[in-house]
């Protein structure tokens, strides 16, 4: 399959096309939102240039034979660059090497172009299938018309329509002219899952050859003639303001062109900085190092991690917002024969994608051109327009490969920063953050503190269960809260509500904790921390009544057959019931939340003072697995990120600033520390659901539960040292 990450026209391709009269059949939606109607866009394509189309051209068939499928979501490593066009190709009856996948630029015709919440494939599954099927039906009708035969004697396969009785065939390209004149079927017939040729089979990703040869272009690789590089000295305490700065030495560095105040708008917050703009990035960096900036930290310099635990503990005594209340927890807990209570403490974390934040912006009058790595191309367009008070169509956004998102690139501060600087100096400006900028710049995954209580009856059956989450609010720190009495983020309850345990008296509390630092959506969001507390505590409950932790969970699942099936599948695939070697322990955890559901079984063996992870077995129910190999990849990655957060560094604050600055003190799990990870996909013909995030939440609690099984030590605070459990 061909792939064009670069959006510039290849001259040779242009000349080739230029010599022919190209006629296209374009099938799209009147908007890319679910439930929207398919329309034939061919006339509009003929009328206007593609970039100014009003609607979404997802499938473009040319009479030259070229089949173009648009990738209208950014590729951040999750695989949608292939998986979404693959769904169209399935219904269109073409193989992947017959199509060209083209990355779309930001345009409202594509509707929501954002990637987050493990949402892309499942939200577009129906639309993409419909688009492919409609085009296939129109081509089939066109063939029947040409041959003057009944439509039901014709079928599509591998980019051709065949006439069954005679065996004659015609390519899609040859049928495009006629197909274009036909009505778009409103409800095209979708294929039966049994007939799938692409969906459900492992297939190789087309972006990978470019990524192993250094040819893939990421945001940081963009450049245009005449651009300046920028490095911005930012307040170490994010909200600090500039008192004064001294730039004489900076301006003496050869290549330095401008030193000016910078601003970085991240939703409701705008942070200050001093930017050095130069001919090379190295000169900009040196200039920045030569700056002397005096900052006013205001009230923000008083924030310390050391105080947070104490504050969270105090808050855990309050009720906060009672989010879920089933039965009568207080009475049931008071009357319980056996009681269990525990607190869990989870830290702040940074996203730390490998590609540092960056953006190239070129503001010219009332138009802007942007090249960046983002999870939200359409928001980049809208927010830039709002920021500069210009129409969105004046903002052209080039979508490049993204060197890791994990939620960080759902924030557009790096874009606003580049736009601001380019506007000030009237030249294209490429801002490249250092790793230190990235680590200090937030936003951070919220730290959470959980207090859990459970009560059992005389027979050892759980009758009362409470999970109270003390959590800063992502929404409040980013957007503010209209009602001062409702500052808690409902997201903090996201997975708890879906936890499948059927206990008669149940209460979930959401206690708001005010923090002066911007919080952000981190892979798996609140589930990345609350699942650890919840699933570790359920393990404690199982041990408290002397039951097998997996059997205990299975018995507690009520109506949620999906989770029951997943856990049963995980039990089988992990060999849970097999005897273990001496010194080994096994642990299980699973989780269902907005993104989907997965579970892990972790095997550990005792070492001198800690444990070694011998093996991890993960199971995921993602409905239909569009590309099973990519599903496995995502679950492997989620597992590693979960382990990293459990075993490596946390972000801590000292006098208002993050203490960690780079990978030496904010460490990542490395190859030599990564255990074997097996991923099993629950066979399913349900519609697809998420795979980007579900692999993360259960990994850490499954590990902690295995550690308890092997050593009797219960881990209630992350991160911890796996080699020295204390």
């Amino acid at each position, binding site marked *: 399959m061909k792939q064009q990450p670069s959006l510039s026209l290849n001259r040779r391709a242009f000349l080739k096309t230029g010599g022919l009269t190209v006629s296209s059949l374009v099938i799209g939606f009147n908007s890319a939102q679910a439930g929207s109607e398919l329309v034939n866009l061919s006339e509009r394509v003929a009328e206007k240039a593609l970039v100014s189309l009003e609607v979404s051209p997802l499938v473009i068939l040319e009479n030259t034979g070229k089949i173009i499928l648009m990738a209208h979501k950014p590729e951040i490593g999750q695989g949608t660059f292939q998986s979404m066009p693959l769904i169209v190709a399935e219904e269109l009856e073409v193989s992947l090497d017959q199509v060209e996948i083209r990355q779309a630029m930001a345009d409202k015709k594509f509707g929501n172009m954002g990637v987050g919440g493990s949402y892309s494939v499942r939200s577009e599954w129906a639309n993409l299938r419909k688009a492919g099927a409609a085009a296939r039906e129109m081509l089939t009708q066109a063939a029947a018309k040409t041959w003057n035969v009944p439509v039901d004697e014709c079928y599509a396969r591998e980019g051709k329509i065949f006439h069954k009785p005679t065996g004659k065939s015609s390519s899609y390209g040859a049928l495009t002219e006629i197909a274009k004149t036909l009505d778009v079927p409103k409800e095209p017939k979708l294929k039966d899952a049994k007939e799938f040729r692409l969906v459900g089979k492992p297939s190789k*990703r087309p972006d990978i050859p*470019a990524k*192993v040869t250094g040819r893939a272009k990421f945001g*940081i690789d963009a450049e245009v003639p005449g651009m300046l590089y920028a490095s911005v000295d930012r307040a170490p305490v994010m909200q600090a303001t500039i008192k004064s700065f001294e730039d004489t030495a900076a301006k003496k560095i050869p290549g330095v062109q401008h030193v000016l105040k910078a601003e970085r708008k991240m939703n409701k917050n705008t942070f200050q900085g001093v930017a050095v703009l130069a001919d090379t990035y190295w000169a900009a960096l040196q200039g920045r190092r030569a700056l002397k900036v005096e900052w006013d930290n205001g009230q923000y310099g008083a924030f310390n991690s050391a105080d947070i635990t104490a504050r969270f503990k105090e808050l855990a005594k309050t009720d906060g917002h009672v989010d879920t209340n089933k039965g009568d927890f207080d009475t049931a807990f008071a009357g319980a024969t056996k009681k269990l209570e525990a607190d869990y403490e989870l830290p702040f974390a940074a996203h730390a994608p490998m*590609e540092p934040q960056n953006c190239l912006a070129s503001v010219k009058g009332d138009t802007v051109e942007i090249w960046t790595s983002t999870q939200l191309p359409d928001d980049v367009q809208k927010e830039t327009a709002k920021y500069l008070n210009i129409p969105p169509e004046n903002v052209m956004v080039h979508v490049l490969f*993204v*060197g890791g998102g994990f939620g960080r690139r759902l924030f557009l501060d790096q874009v606003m920063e580049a736009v601001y600087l380019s506007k000030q100096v009237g030249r294209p400006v490429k801002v490249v953050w250092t790793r230190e900028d990235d680590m200090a710049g937030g936003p951070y995954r919220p730290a959470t503190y959980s207090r859990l209580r459970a009560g059992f009856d005389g027979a050892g059956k759980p009758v009362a269960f409470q999970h109270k989450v003390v959590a800063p609010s992502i929404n409040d720190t980013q957007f503010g809260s209209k009602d001062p009495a409702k500052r808690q983020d409902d997201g903090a309850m996201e997975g708890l509500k879906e936890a499948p345990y059927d206990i008669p008296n149940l209460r979930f509390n959401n206690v708001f904790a005010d923090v002066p630092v911007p919080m952000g959506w981190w892979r798996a969001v609140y589930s990345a921390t609350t699942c650890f507390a919840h699933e570790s505590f359920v393990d404690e409950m199982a041990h408290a009544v002397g039951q097998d932790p997996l059997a205990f969970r299975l018995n507690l699942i009520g109506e949620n057959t999906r989770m029951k099936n997943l856990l049963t599948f995980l039990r089988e695939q992990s060999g849970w019931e097999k005897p273990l070697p001496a010194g080994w322990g096994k642990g299980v955890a699973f989780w269902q939340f907005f993104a989907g559901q997965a579970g892990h079984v972790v095997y550990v063996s005792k070492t001198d003072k800690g444990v070694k992870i011998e093996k991890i077995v993960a199971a995921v129910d993602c409905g239909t697995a569009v590309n099973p190999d990519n599903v496995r*990849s995502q679950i492997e990655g989620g597992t590693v990120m979960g382990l990293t957060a459990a075993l490596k560094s946390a972000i801590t604050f000292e006098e208002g600033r993050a203490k960690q600055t780079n990978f030496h003190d904010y460490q990542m799990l490395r*190859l030599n520390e990564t255990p074997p*990870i097996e991923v099993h996909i629950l066979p399913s013909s349900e519609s697809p659901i998420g795979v980007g995030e579900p692999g993360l939440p259960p990994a850490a609690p499954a590990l902690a539960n295995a550690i308890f099984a092997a050593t009797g030590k219960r881990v209630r605070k992350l991160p911890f040292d796996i080699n020295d459990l204390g």
Partner: protein
Amino acid sequence: MAVISLTINGKKRTINADPQMPLLWAVRDVVGLKGTKFGCGMAQCGACTVHLNGKPIRSCITPVSTVANKKITTIEGVGSEARLHPVQQAWIEEQVPQCGYCQSGQIMSAVALLNTNPDPTDAEIDQAMSGNICRCGTYNRVRKAIHRASDMMKESALKTK
């Protein structure tokens, strides 16, 4: 500023740059080869790995003046899509990359390892590859791909014999 002559992927290039400029920025911004990536700037993550006379180095902390006239190889010099190096081929077979940003560095470390040790054990892979961070968590596939590349290289060596 100084005139520095570099040999990158077999080609001689003369650049005018600050002698202290790290090789990384010289390669990316002056020479224009964007495959080598910036990750940390302090030799912690390996995204900027290139070869200096065949040995892997971190270009983000290597002043460009110190590598004048020495043989530098970047990811672009390892192989192209038309002529893939066995390591790159193995990377495709095992579908290693996710976001792909760190993979140039991973591949440079792997190629250097296999050049000196054609049949590495898991422990030797641990040693050679633990300097390269992948935030997407592709490590197990990296390991598998190195073993696969090793097999491929041994096979082709047998054939040429």
